[in-house]
């Protein structure tokens, strides 16, 4: 009986390996983290400072990552640290060529007057297994009048992770 079980293991194992040899895909990257912090309240005219921390605690080395911050509406961009690659209206999205799926926006038209304002840091390299988070800072001026809740959205984008975002709400008094 023991011999039968042993033999079946030796005979079945290669068969299993063969059947699993269908196209193996590279797994998407896990362990990419983003976290935001900022003021819970602010008043018109004040400067709101948002702190964005990103980390790669997973196994993938990531090159060419973009960190994009969509600044809250009715705030004005003041400064970002480290200096970003771009700050201003977002390009309008268009379809990437067929056969290639990418989360990145590609500009084909001039921005419209009501374009979405954003700040972009890129390219960023994220080393695998980092214990320390990298820190990015965004400063905006809160425009008045009117009390409302504003939301700052920060997203990491890369084809191996798609888009991972974190948001922070601030109440404007």
């Amino acid at each position, binding site marked *: 009986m023991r*011999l039968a079980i042993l033999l079946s293991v030796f005979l079945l194992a290669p068969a299993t390996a063969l059947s699993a040899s269908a196209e193996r895909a590279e797994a998407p990257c896990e362990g990419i983290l983003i976290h935001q912090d900022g003021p819970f309240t602010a008043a018109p005219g004040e400067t709101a400072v948002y702190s964005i921390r990103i980390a790669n605690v997973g196994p993938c080395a990531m090159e060419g990552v973009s960190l994009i911050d969509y600044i809250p509406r009715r705030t004005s961009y003041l400064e970002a640290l480290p200096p970003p690659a771009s700050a201003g209206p*977002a390009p309008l*999205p*268009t379809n*990437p060529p067929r056969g290639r*799926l990418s989360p990145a926006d590609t500009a084909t038209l001039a921005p*419209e007057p009501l374009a979405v304002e954003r700040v972009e840091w890129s390219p960023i390299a994220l080393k695998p297994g980092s214990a320390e988070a990298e820190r990015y800072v965004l400063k905006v001026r809160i425009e008045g009048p009117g009390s409302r809740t504003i939301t700052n959205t920060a997203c990491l984008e890369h084809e*191996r992770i*798609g888009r991972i975002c974190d948001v922070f709400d601030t109440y404007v008094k």
Partner: protein
Amino acid sequence: MRRTPLVSLLVPVIALFLPLPKASAKPLLMAVLGDSISAATLADVPFPPPATSEEGIKRLSEDGVKADVLLENKFRYSWASGRLIRSQYRLLKRHLRRSGERRALLVYNVAVPGAETGDLPKQAKRIAEEMEKGEHDELAYVTILIGSNDSCARRPGGETPIATMRANLLRTFAILASVKQRKRIPILLVGIPRIPDLGEEAIRNSRTLLGLTCEKVRNDILNLCNSMLRWKTPEEYDRNMLVVEDRNRLLRLLAREVSLLYPQLDVFYSNRLYHLGISTGVLAADCFHPNKDAQEIISLQVWSDQPWFKERKPR
């Protein structure tokens, strides 16, 4: 004579030549709930459009879902279920194939043009009833894009109240949670786009059907979302954007709440549409709905946000 040792030896050898057990023959189901965006209303009527009589335009707005080809294009151009664009359905199919999934994937799009959150429980019931038939192995993916019609009103201040939207959505998720299956149901809840941006002067004054302006066709004749689009001052624009933002915040917070309330549901909120700028290049001839290019843009953009089916590159 003892036959047992010989039989024990032969059984695993014989087993090698037997066919592997088939995966369940029942297909997976993807469900689509929502409004005219998911129904792909007018997706195939380009901007600028071919000539159409003014009477024809009025009839279109009154006929509702009777004008199936124009008012619903779910099979071909819906961002969620369309076969002729890189829709969620096609992207999911590709992902499943690359992951070695052998079950077929079907899609059931129950979105209705004009639907508000109050209409979602009915749509969810249709999905639950479809699953109840037992013809599908599991509900593999659900998309819900809703809120635009709740934000539009006959007059400013007439939008669906936040509390009412919340109650409507909780009822919807309760119905979806009644679907019994082993795996959690992934639900992508997509936020409302920047509707007031459509009232921007450059779009309002663009020429569309019969050479009429977008404002004439969209707002005077078709009466599409006038409360959001007829703003004249920055203050009015701001007020209208706050309507959208407050409702998107509700959707975002509700996604988290529902995932805790119903462990069998895994709801993820995407705010991607709110961060996409709008130009006439992405509009259908009514200067309101997304054309087929925009439907594909919507799909590709929100696909990047969903956390379950991350793109796998072949080795």
